[in-house]
């Protein structure tokens, strides 16, 4: 096969990885909009089928690329829109980072789809769940295969929206609603980082394409912009990653996100969404290489988050919260690895952690049953290893316990020093405006 035909084949396969979930989304979404929702079997079948097609296409792409030593293939699908020199291009990239990652993510989506069709059988929000799952799958594939910051941002947003809506899936519960709003507030604030990074990239290289920002095969690509520009973009991307990856001081939403259905917790906060920030940083690793001091920011944040999560996770009284802190700790360690300049190890860490954690989360509803089965098999309760913290003096243990119970005072600090002052000022302005409008209208308005 000559080079052109291989490029065409890769392009076709990459497009299939996006087209399959898109078509499934339309096939389920349009009947929903016109008031004729599909049945459970059809819905989950369409979603599962789309993930299966995307998975097979990804595996074939992986085989083709492996045969060529993972030389990157850029797939240019055209220009989305352009004004003057400002162009939003639809570029995708198939390389040694994106293709294995998309195999892994679509494979996990496929498995969770199979789990969820039974788990959510006859649930009132069955169709809604699968719409959001396929939207998430599409967002994931877009983000992973993105060859430009514009496409990456689109995928990033789809992940955030589907995550927020799945946290609030059981909308009749007040806690789920509050948790969803909290997660969205965090996402939205941090998304400003990726938005600004996109603009800086456009200003720096005149386009959002990654191949104008760095060149070469991952993970040995060369940065094509100055170190100061690379540092600015990297810091903005790190800020964006903090929210999605629940790093301190933006970690408060993650344990609350477990209000969502278990399959979504598994795939979002055990496997894929929680690592989205790490993926973006791995994708833009030449920028981090060009601005080495920025790497230390990652080390400090990741290390701090890992310590925080390790401590707080120990005092959680429910399994899903404990697992959430476990995910947060591992994500922190992955940040440390990326900050230290490692590239393949964080990728392996992401994949292995995601598989283990999603399995743990999927089994969490049956945890008591599993423990009883284990106890029956062992002929007694399985022993617990003595935690190293118990070797500390009792006063220290008590102090640490208090800190952990208050979740490291992280949320308290954010609420007291940022949220409440802001809300107070805005509420006072609002009250003054109401009084002014009432005075102008002479009598109180009806609402």
């Amino acid at each position, binding site marked *: 096969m000559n080079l052109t035909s291989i490029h065409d084949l890769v392009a076709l396969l990459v497009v299939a990885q996006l087209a399959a979930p898109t078509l499934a989304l339309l096939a389920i979404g349009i009947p929903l909009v016109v*008031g004729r929702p599909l049945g459970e079997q059809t819905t989950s079948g369409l979603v599962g089928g789309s993930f299966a097609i995307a998975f097979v296409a990804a595996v074939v792409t992986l085989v083709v690329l492996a045969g060529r030593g993972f030389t990157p293939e850029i797939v240019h699908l055209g220009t989305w*829109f352009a004004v*003057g020199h400002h162009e939003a291009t639809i570029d995708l990239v198939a390389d040694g980072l994106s293709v294995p990652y998309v195999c892994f993510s679509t494979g996990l989506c496929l498995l969770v789809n199979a789990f969820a069709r039974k788990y959510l059988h006859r649930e009132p929000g069955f169709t809604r769940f699968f719409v959001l799952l396929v939207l998430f799958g599409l967002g994931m594939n877009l983000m992973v295969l993105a060859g430009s910051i514009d496409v990456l941002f689109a995928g990033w947003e789809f992940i955030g929206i589907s995550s927020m809506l799945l946290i609030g899936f059981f*909308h*009749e519960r007040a806690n789920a609603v509050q948790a969803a709003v909290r997660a969205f507030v965090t996402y939205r604030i941090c*998304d*400003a980082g990726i938005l*600004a990074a996109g*603009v800086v990239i456009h200003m720096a290289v005149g386009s959002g394409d990654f191949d104008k920002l760095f060149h070469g095969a991952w993970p040995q690509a060369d940065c094509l912009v100055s170190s100061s520009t690379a540092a600015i973009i990297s810091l903005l991307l790190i800020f964006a990653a903090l929210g999605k990856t629940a790093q301190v001081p933006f970690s408060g939403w993650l344990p609350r996100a477990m209000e969502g259905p278990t399959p979504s917790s598994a795939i979002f906060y055990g496997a894929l969404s929680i690592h989205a920030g790490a993926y973006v940083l791995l994708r833009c690793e030449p920028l981090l290489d060009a601005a080495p001091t920025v790497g230390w920011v990652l080390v400090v944040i990741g290390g701090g988050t890992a310590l925080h999560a390790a401590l707080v996770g120990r005092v959680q009284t429910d399994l899903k919260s404990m697992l959430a802190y476990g995910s947060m700790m591992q994500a922190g360690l992955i940040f440390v690895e990326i900050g230290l300049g490692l590239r393949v190890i964080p990728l392996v860490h992401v994949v292995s952690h995601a598989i283990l954690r999603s399995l743990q989360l999927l089994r969490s509803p049956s945890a008591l049953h599993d423990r009883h089965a284990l106890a029956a098999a062992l002929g007694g309760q399985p022993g617990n290893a003595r935690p190293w913290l118990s070797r500390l003096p009792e006063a220290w243990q008590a102090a640490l316990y208090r800190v952990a119970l208050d979740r490291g005072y992280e949320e308290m600090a954010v609420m007291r020093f940022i949220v409440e002052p802001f809300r107070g000022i805005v509420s006072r302005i609002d009250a003054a405006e109401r009084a002014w409008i009432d005075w102008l209208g002479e009598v109180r308005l009806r*609402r």
Partner: protein
Amino acid sequence: MSSTSIVPVLIACGSAVAGPLLAAGAVQLRCWRDTPRWPAVAGLVVSLVSGVAVWALWNIRGAAIEYGPRLGGGAMLHVDGVTAVLLPFVAACLVAVIGTTPRRALDVRGTAWFLSGAAATCGLFLTAHPLLIVALAVAAALPVWRATRDEPGGRPAARVFAITIVPSLCCLAIGTAMMLADPPWDPGSGWIGALGGWLVAVAVLIREGVVPFHFWFPALFAGAPFHVSLLATVPQVGSYAAVRLLIGHADGVPNELVALAQLAPVTAVYGGALALVQRDLRRLIGYLAFSQSALVLAGLAGTLPMELAGGLTLWVASGLSLTGIGVVAAALEGRAGPLRLDLPQGRFWDAPALAGFFLLFGLATIGLPGTLSFVADDLIIAGSLAEHLHGGILVILATVFSGIAVMRGWFGIFGGPMIIDAPRHAILPRERIVMAVLLATVVGLGIVPGPLVRTLEQAATTLLSKRHDALFPGTERLPGVPDHEP
């Protein structure tokens, strides 16, 4: 243009205004006994079809179409890229609004006023003649005031509207007269023209709800019927006046445009921040509306093609999305009464389809990728950051606040414990059709924004060429900015 080729344009433009005007007459004469909805819809559909025809004729001709006497650089009938896109957009929004307004909100007098306002608004978008712009701005504001005043409990809102809009219209009229008497774009112009420019700028600031003149937006949304509030805010009459009277004559009023460009992003942030703490849906939409219109103004007052094109794109995008949110809110309120946000209302159980539409329009408002707002936000943010760092940061902050406010609103209305005994409110077929078509338009234009953005870019570069000459006399034009209007 020859008299034969102008005839179809005149017919299309005339129908765009005559459709709602005749419908207003038919409603007033009670030609339809059961409901004034159908004549109103028919009249506005005529406007919509005529608007599409105007767009098609402009495309065929490929250049601006002018007819009638000119004054101050503007003809009585003026069709360029701005008009060709905005006229069908305004008509489509008004069709959607009137098609979904609950029956009890559509009384004969109120509908006739609505249609009169719609006719004036459509007429306004077809002219660049300064005096006609002033007259039609007055004609567009009057029905809003009357329809609000006639609404039970709407007098205070009508009063607030009048207190703010009357000075705005006075500034517009006096300022326009002064600009015509002493054109600031002519060499050797004196203080009269300069003062006129500032008065028009103040009129635009008030009409677009720029801080500190914004309070009429939440007051109107709180006190007026939804369809009247949307008529007053979605077309953005003030922005259109700014395009024709300020941006179109930028060589005379560069400082006024700088003032607009600086105040508008601050307003966008302010509106977004205030929307975060609202306790009822109507006021939330009011704050969102002026935050979005300020973003449009921020783009229009910019100096880069992408800012201006972004402003024009956001004009369409936010208008369609806010119309969507407004019609869903009106439908919900028609069923469940006033909607508060301080405690979750649990309406998802009652109206799942409306919840879905509200969510999708809300996401479209805050720039979900795949919708037109995403394209517009991208252009405005890129343009603002390239021009002024602080402007770009303010625009990003505004989008962050608006996004949080919309989702907080959605969860506030639809989240929360369900009321098991409550009746389930199925969506009506006409509501579903209108909302689905509106949504398809927002998404379709978001997925394939190229043709629309190209049209608006062309309009933007034409306007910018004048602006560039004013701000940077003697320098080269910006890339892509043509030397002359086609």
